[in-house]
């Protein structure tokens, strides 16, 4: 069986540097478009799902 992360935050993407921190990889975006694009790219790479935390922060979660 594959060993994969389940229900873990694989990446955090945000436009607000002051709002995030901690263990998951964090990607800073310049604006909403960049945020959106980066989230899609990361979700495709990580086989994850994008969730919106509001306030310019997205997380990619492996389910």
């Amino acid at each position, binding site marked *: 069986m594959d060993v994969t992360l389940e229900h873990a935050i694989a990446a955090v993407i945000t436009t607000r540097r002051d709002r995030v921190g901690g263990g998951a990889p964090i990607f800073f975006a310049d604006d909403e478009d960049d945020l959106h694009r980066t989230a*899609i790219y990361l979700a495709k790479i990580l086989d994850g799902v*994008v969730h*919106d935390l509001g306030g310019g922060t997205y997380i990619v979660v492996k389910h």
Partner: protein
Amino acid sequence: MNEGHLLRIVAAVVVGTLARLVMLRSDYRQYPSYPHAYVVHLGLGFIAASLGGLAVPAIVTRDFMAASILALAGQQFREVRDMERRSLEKLEDTELVPRGTAYIEGIARVFEARNYLAMAAALATSTVSYALPVPRAMAIVAGAACGLATAAIIAGVFGRRTVGDIAVVREGRIRFDGPLLSVDGMVLSNIGLEEARAVIEAKGVGVVLEPKDDNARATIANIGQRQAIVHDAASIMGIRVDISERDFTPLMRLDIATGRAGMVMVPIEKDIGALLEVVRRAPIIETSIRKPLATRAGRIAAD
């Protein structure tokens, strides 16, 4: 061995194998779905029928050793459950929407039980064909009829209940509150991407399950039961999901206050009538059946 024994044994084995064959159909479970699996199960059914068919003649000819060995051989069918469970569990990783362990356990039990059923049909056939004080040919025909009737009765009794029996299944309204996806007010998930939300709004369908009583409520609350419903819906209706496209993974969540369950999926073809039918016909998983109303405390709590 004289001809009388041989004819009776053949009749019993044929009836038992036939009973197994009739129960071997690729049904809502989409399993077994390939010829080799049919061969495996027919082969096992044949062996089970032989065991059932040989028991009575062994006793009649006072060969108690043979009878004991046959009883022991019956134990082997426990392996069937294990075999089915193991192979289905191994395949779980290759399913976009897994069956879930409860569903697998249910399927494995059914496959084991069907061999005993084939055995019972053969046993009934041979018992009657030996016991009836009529000419041999008539006794064998009566035995065969009795064996088939046994199979039909047992299959009828064990005919499994479906979700439609315990819950009202109807369409639910999909709504987004910001990124929060809900169906009839039950929040299911957080969908981050605008594009994904647009697809769900356009092509998604919502289903609501309303349990008919407290027993049903407890059964639907079982995670394995919900996973089985979702798996059936996904495998029959098709889903817009792939390894790197998990946004539209079908979900079913509970409204804890009312016991209702809400589900959203994005089928390949949006046909709400067909989806409701699939959900209604999804089997109740044996291991998820709960009967709180069968207890005193449960009935008091239900007031």
